[in-house]
């Protein structure tokens, strides 16, 4: 496949690994923020190619994993309202809520449908004017503009029965929160597709305020190895900067249309992240002017206080403090077919990735 196969060539990966061994002197910890990066690292066995000086830790960049229990429980409460159709991206339906999951609610008769795109959700709303269709909006700056575009489309076509429950979040505040909390990180491998939308400026603070290096990376093994090399060179030379490895996709200013739509539909708000708690101005809520499409404003439900799954250490894993193998439930009570926590549900969750590629 064009733009994929070229970036999986073994000789290129190996030559980058060799260069890395020469360059790396200090012991450093790099965080790959994005779940897609965690997947690539384990799928292609990249950790075994790194010099012993470099340790990679996974970050909070898996949308399903960081969605709060409160959000899942609210979605569950909506699904029990007669005449409501819940539409969602695949993995979310399997996340265990405080008492049940959307998948189980579906088995009990709730109308819960998996969609590949928010546009399908809009289509379902058009087809069922007698039903109320709620789309569960999860994801970061990559995915939020899609939801925003769908809301504007619904407004344009006057589709009154399309609603969004937004748990959309943005990346920079959580990255800064981890640094402020004292998690040992020497540099970030930053999410490529988030940056394709936002451009590179959102990371400037991490360099100027926190003194950390940031390299925006693609998702193929050559991309990842090159990004690790670029970060290591920055750290060794003591010159942290925001650099783009993923030149073929990320423009300095990002996607301006997407940014405009995002701004038109959403505003920043404080948001709760699973395991990380409340992070100021890290979430995206629907603006008052579009409240007709905001499920939170249009539905009243009682959601009992949420409880986190017992024994699950997702929170520490999402902060890069522990790895899944340190969880006593990992691969025993908690497996992808019977997950205890959200990090085992999503294909890009750290626990699910470790499970899949464990040796």
């Amino acid at each position, binding site marked *: 496949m064009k733009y994929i196969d070229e970036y999986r060539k073994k000789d290129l990966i190996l030559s980058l690994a060799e260069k890395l061994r020469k360059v790396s002197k200090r012991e450093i910890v790099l965080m790959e923020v994005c779940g897609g990066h965690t997947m690539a690292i384990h799928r292609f066995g990249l950790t075994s190619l790194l010099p012993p000086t470099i340790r990679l830790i996974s970050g909070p960049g898996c949308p399903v994993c960081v969605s709060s229990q409160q959000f899942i429980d609210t979605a569950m409460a909506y699904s029990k309202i007669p005449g409501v159709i819940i539409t969602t991206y695949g993995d979310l339906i399997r996340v265990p809520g405080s008492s049940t999951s959307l998948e189980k609610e579906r088995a009990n008769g709730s109308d819960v449908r998996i969609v590949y795109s928010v546009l399908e959700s809009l289509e379902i709303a058009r087809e069922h004017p007698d039903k109320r269709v709620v789309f569960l909006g999860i994801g970061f700056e*990559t995915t939020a*503009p*899609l939801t925003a575009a769908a809301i504007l489309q619904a407004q344009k076509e006057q589709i009154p029965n399309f609603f969004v429950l937004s748990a959309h979040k943005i990346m920079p505040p959580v990255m800064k929160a981890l640094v402020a909390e004292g998690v040992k990180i020497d540099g970030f491998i930053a999410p490529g*597709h988030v940056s394709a939308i936002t451009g590179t400026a959102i990371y400037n603070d991490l360099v100027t305020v926190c003194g950390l290096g940031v390299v925006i990376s693609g998702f193929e093994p050559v991309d990842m190895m090159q990004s690790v090399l670029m970060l290591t060179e920055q750290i060794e030379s003591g010159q942290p900067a925001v650099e783009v490895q993923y030149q073929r996709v990320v423009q300095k200013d990002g996607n301006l249309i997407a940014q405009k739509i995002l701004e038109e539909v959403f505003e920043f708000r404080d948001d709760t992240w699973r395991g990380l708690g409340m992070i100021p101005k890290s979430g995206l809520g629907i603006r008052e002017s579009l409240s007709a499409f905001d499920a939170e404003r249009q539905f009243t439900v009682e959601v009992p206080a949420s409880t986190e799954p017992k024994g699950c250490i997702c929170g520490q894993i999402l902060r890069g403090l522990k790895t899944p193998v340190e969880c006593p439930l990992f691969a025993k009570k908690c497996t992808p077919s019977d997950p205890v926590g959200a990090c085992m549900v999503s294909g890009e969750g750290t626990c699910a990735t470790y499970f899949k590629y464990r040796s």
Partner: protein
Amino acid sequence: MCLAIPAKVISVEGASALVTIEDVEYKASLLLLTDVQPGDYIMLHAGFAIEKVDAAEAEETLRLLNELNQFTLD
């Protein structure tokens, strides 16, 4: 979930494009990306084209990597 895959644009009609990934056809909404031509590669994310793939940049990255490869082999 932030995954996006390179897809080749076959045709464009209004705010939507027909694209292929390994000969399988998909529809890509162009609500977030304009100025797309047949033959371009776009990054497809959950039914939307979110950015173009810059062919010149892609070649440049590979050229530099191949140079490094030559160098380490010598």
